[in-house]
C-alpha cells in the first residue's frame, strides 16, 4: 500500500496551519492574532503551489482509499483559491474579535474537510471527511455568538446530524448490497451481482439515495437545503459565503466520484435520480429567492439553485466525457463569483452595522462606484452573462446535459436562469437609485472594510479574466477527467 505522506502536502499544509494557528493563537494577544490569518493565507498559497507542482503526475491512491488524481488536484486548487479569497473577505469581520484565532482555524479545518471529501474513494472515508467538513463549520456559523447566529448554528447542526445519520445508514445499506465500502470493489460487486441475478437493486438504490442526501446537505441541494437560507441570513456575510461555497465544492466532487466510480448506472438508474435532484434544486431555490428582501437570504436561495446547475453535470456523468470538466469548471466559476457577491455584502455598511436588506444598497453606485461595479459583475456573473466565468460554466454544463440526452434538463435550466435574472436584478436596480431612502443615509460610517472590498474587486476581476481566458482553466480541467 502506498503510504507516502509527501503526496498530501496541500492537505497537510491546511492541517499544519490549523494546528499551529490554534497553538500560537492561544498565546498571542488579541491585536496580534492577525498572524494566524497570515498563516492561513500562507497555507493556502503553499497548498496551491504544491498542487501545481504535482498537477500532471500520474494518478495514485494513497493510504488505500484516498485518490490523488486530476479531479482531486483540480478540487484542491478550487478549494484553496476559494479559501484564500474567503480569508481576504473575512479579515474585516474577524479582526480584533475575541475569537479571531478560532475563526481562522475553523475555516482551515472546513476547507481541509472539503478537499478530503473530494478525494475519498471509500464510503467510510467519505463519511469521516463529511464529519470533518461539517463540524468546524457548525462552530464557524455560531462563531459570531449573536442570537440569529446561534439559531443558525443550531439549525445547521441539527440538519447536519440528521444528514450524517442518513449518510451512514446509506453507506451501511450499500455495504449490505455490495459487501465492500471501497468504490472500485463496490462497483465490481454490484455489477456482478446484477449479472448473476442475485442483486438487491432496491437496497442499493435506497442506500445510494441516503448517501446522496448526506452529501446534498453539504452541497446545500434538495432534499437537504433547509438550513441554507437561515444560515446565510443569520451569520456575518463572510461566514455565509464560506458555508455556501467551500463545502459545496467538496460535496459535489464527492457526488461525482461516488456516482462514476462506485455505482454502475445499469444497476441503479442514478442519472434520473440526480437529474430530479438537480431540477428540484434549481427550481425551488429560484422560486424562493424571488421576493426576498435580505440580500444574504437571497444569495442563500441563489446558492441552492446554483447547485442544481452543477448537479446537471453530475447527472450525465456516465454518458458524456464533457461532464467532468463541466462540473469542475462550473464549481470554480461559481465559487469565485459567489464569494465575490458575499464579499460585497461584507463590505457594504450602514450606520447601524452591516447592510442586510436590498434597501441598504440604494445609491451604492454613487457612494462606492467600484464596489457597486464589482457587485454588478458578480451578480450578472451568477446569471451567466458572457464573458464571465459562470457563462462558460453554464455553456459547458448545458452542452454536457444535451450531449448526455437530458435536453429537458437544459431547457429547465434555461427557464430557471431567466427566472433567476429577476431577483438578481432586484438587487442591481437599487444600486443606481439616485434618491436614497431616508432610512439609509448615504455616508459610509468610516467602517473602512478594505479587505472585503479588495476581495470583492479581486473576485469580480477574476470572474471576467477567467471567462476571457477560459482556455487556461478549461485545459486544466479537461486533463482532470
Amino acid at each position: 500500500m502506498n503510504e507516502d505522506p509527501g503526496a498530501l502536502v496541500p492537505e497537510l499544509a491546511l492541517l499544519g496551519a490549523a494546528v499551529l494557528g490554534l497553538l500560537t493563537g492561544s498565546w498571542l494577544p488579541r491585536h496580534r492574532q492577525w498572524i494566524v490569518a497570515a498563516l492561513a493565507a500562507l497555507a493556502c498559497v503553499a497548498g496551491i503551489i504544491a498542487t501545481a507542482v504535482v498537477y500532471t503526475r500520474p494518478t495514485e491512491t494513497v493510504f488505500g482509499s484516498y485518490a490523488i488524481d486530476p479531479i482531486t488536484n483540480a478540487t484542491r486548487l478550487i478549494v484553496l483559491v476559494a479559501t484564500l479569497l474567503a480569508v481576504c473577505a473575512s479579515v474585516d469581520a474577524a479582526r480584533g474579535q475575541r475569537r479571531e484565532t478560532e475563526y481562522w482555524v475553523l475555516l482551515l479545518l472546513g476547507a481541509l474537510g472539503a478537499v478530503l471529501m473530494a478525494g475519498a474513494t471509500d464510503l467510510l472515508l467519505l463519511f469521516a471527511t463529511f464529519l470533518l467538513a461539517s463540524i468546524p463549520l457548525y462552530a464557524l456559523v455560531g462563531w459570531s455568538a449573536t442570537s440569529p447566529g446561534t439559531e443558525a448554528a443550531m439549525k445547521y447542526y441539527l440538519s447536519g446530524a440528521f444528514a450524517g445519520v442518513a449518510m451512514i445508514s446509506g453507506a451501511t445499506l450499500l455495504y449490505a448490497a455490495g459487501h465492500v465500502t471501497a468504490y472500485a470493489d463496490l462497483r465490481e460487486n454490484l455489477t456482478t451481482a446484477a449479472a448473476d441475478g442475485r442483486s438487491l437493486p432496491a437496497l442499493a438504490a435506497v442506500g445510494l439515495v441516503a448517501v446522496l442526501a448526506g452529501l446534498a446537505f453539504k452541497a446545500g441541494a434538495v432534499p437537504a437545503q433547509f438550513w441554507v437560507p437561515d444560515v446565510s441570513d443569520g451569520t456575518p456575510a463572510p461566514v455565509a459565503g464560506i458555508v455556501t461555497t467551500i463545502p459545496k465544492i467538496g460535496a459535489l466532487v464527492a457526488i461525482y466520484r461516488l456516482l462514476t466510480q462506485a455505482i454502475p448506472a445499469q444497476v441503479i438508474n442514478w442519472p434520473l435520480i440526480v437529474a430530479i435532484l438537480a431540477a428540484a434544486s434549481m427550481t425551488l431555490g429560484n422560486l424562493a429567492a424571488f421576493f426576498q428582501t435580505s440580500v444574504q437570504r437571497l444569495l442563500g436561495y441563489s446558492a441552492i439553485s446554483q447547485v442544481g446547475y452543477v448537479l446537471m453535470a453530475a447527472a450525465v456523468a456516465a454518458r458524456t466525457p464533457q461532464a467532468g470538466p463541466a462540473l469542475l469548471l462550473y464549481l470554480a466559476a461559481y465559487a469565485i463569483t459567489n464569494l465575490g457577491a458575499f464579499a460585497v455584502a461584507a463590505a457594504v455598511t450602514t450606520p447601524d452595522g452591516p447592510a442586510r436588506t436590498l434597501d441598504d444598497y440604494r445609491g451604492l453606485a454613487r457612494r462606492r462606484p467600484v464596489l457597486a461595479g464589482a457587485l454588478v459583475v458578480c451578480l450578472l456573473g451568477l446569471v451567466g452573462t458572457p464573458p464571465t466565468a459562470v457563462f462558460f460554466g453554464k455553456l459547458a454544463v448545458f452542452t454536457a446535459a444535451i450531449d448526455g440526452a437530458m435536453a429537458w434538463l437544459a431547457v429547465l435550466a434555461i427557464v430557471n436562469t431567466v427566472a433567476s435574472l429577476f431577483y438578481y436584478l432586484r438587487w442591481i436596480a437599487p444600486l443606481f437609485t439616485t434618491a436614497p431612502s431616508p432610512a439609509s443615509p448615504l455616508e459610509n460610517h468610516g467602517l473602512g472594510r478594505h479587505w472585503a472590498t479588495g476581495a470583492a474587486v479581486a473576485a469580480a476581476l477574476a470572474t471576467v479574466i477567467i471567462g476571457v481566458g477560459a482556455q487556461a482553466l478549461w485545459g486544466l480541467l479537461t486533463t482532470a477527467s
Partner: protein
Amino acid sequence: MLSLIVFLPAVAAALLGALPGRLPARMFIGTWIAVALADLALIVTAWARLPAATGPSGYQFEERLAWIPSAGISYHLGVDGLSLPLLAMTGVLFLACAVFALRETRRVKAYVLLFLALQTVCLGLFVALDLILFFLFFDLSIVLMYFVIAGWGHGERARATALKFFLYTFLGSLALLLGFILLFLAARPHTFDIVELTAANPLVAGGPYAGLALLAIGVGLAVKTPTVPFHTWLPPAHTEAPATGSAILAGVLLKMGTYGFVRIAMPLLPASWRQYALVVLLIGVVSVVYGALVALAQTNLKRMIAYTSVNHMGYVLVGVGAAGLLAAGDVQARTLATTGALVQMVSHGLITGALFLLAGVLYDRGRTYDFAAWSGLAARTPRFAALFAIAAFASLGLPGFSGFIAEFQIFTGSLPAAPVPVAIAVTGILITAALFLVALQRLFLGPWRAPDAPGAPRPLADLRPSELVAIAPLLALATLIGLAPRFLLDLVEPAAAAVNALVTR
C-alpha cells in the same frame, strides 16, 4: 482592422472612465463624437478597400485567434456583403446619437461610457463569425440596453419596463444559446465557428434534430427582431427609453435578430429552413399586418413608431421566408427577396432612428408623446415638421426613399413564392401610409396646441442645430439609397445570392 473598428469605442470608454466625472459634459460627448466619427471613417475605409482584401472563405478582413480551442470557440471576425452595410449603418446611427446627445445633462459620463460600450457590442455582433462570440455580443447588448433604459428612461416606470425588456430578451438569448449548443454538438469535430459549420454543414439532412435547432434559434431571434407573437416587450421599452436609446434599440438591436436569420439560421440549417420557410413567411405577414393595424390605433407617437418597427421587421421575414420557399425555383426572384430584406434592415435603421430622435425632440419640448397634446406644429416649428414629414414618407415606402427600394424588392421577389400571403402583406403598406398621414395631420395641421408648462405657456423651440445635424444625415442617406441604390446593391446582391446558394444545398 475589424478589431480596431470594434474595440475603438471600448478603448475610448476605458480611457474616459479613468477621468473624473466632474469634468464638463461637453468633453465626454465631444470625445464620443470624435470616436464615432473615427470609427465611421474606418468603416468607410474598409468599404472602399473591400475588393482588394478578399479572404479565403468569402469573408474579408478576416481575423482569427484561438480563444478556447478545446471547446471549439475562437475569436473570429470578418465582413461580407451581409454585414458591412449593417456595420456602416451602425456607425452612422451611433454618430447621430452622439451628436444628438449634446443636449444630455443627466450623469453624462456614465451615459457616454455606456453608449461607447454599446457601440462596441453592436459593431462586434455584425462581424462575429463565431457563435459564442455572436452570443456574447448579443447578450451584452441586452445588458447594456437595460442600463440605458433603467438609468435614462422616463422616470420610475422605466425601471419596470427595463426589467421586462431584460427578462424577455434574455429568455430569447438563452433559447438562441440552446440552438447554438445543438449546432455545436451536431458538427464533428464540435465547433462554434460559423465558417466551419457552414462548410461542414452537419444538419444538411434536416430532420427533427435540425428542426429543434431551428426552433430554438428561431425563437431566440424572433424575440429580438421582434415578430408577432414575441413583440410585446418592444412598445413599452421604446416608450420609456430615452430618444437615443430608442434609436439604437430600433435601429441596431432589432437588426441583430434579422441579421441572425441570414447569418446563422439560413446557411447553417438549410434543409430545415426550406422546410419551415412558409411558417417564417406567414409569421412575417402576420407581423406586417398586425404591426400596422396596432400602430394605426395608437395615441402615443412613440408607441406608434415602435409598432411600425414590428411591421417593417415583418417585411424582412417575408423576404427571407420567400427565399427559403423559392430554393428550388427562380434564382432571380429569391435573390431579389433576400436583397430586399437586407436593404430593408439598413433602411429601417436609418429611417426609424431618425423618427425616434425626432420623437425625442418632441418629448424634450413638451414632456409627452401624446398625439392629443400637440397640434398645428407646422407653422411654429417648420424645420421639425419638414424633417418629420420626410422621415414619415420614407418610412411608409414612398418611391425615392430607401424603404421603397427594399419593400419593392421584397414584394417582387416574394410574390411567386406565396402569392396570397404576400398580397395580404402589401396591404401593410397601405395601412402604414394611412397611419403616417394621420400622424402628420394630427401633429402638424390644425389649430396650434402644445402642452404648457405649469403657469405661462412656453415658447416652442424648433430643431436646434445639434438636433438638425444629428437627424438630417440619416434622412439624406435614406434618400441617397432611394435614388442611387447601386452602391449598396452592388455589395448586397452577391452576398444575398451566396446566402441563397447555401440555403439550396
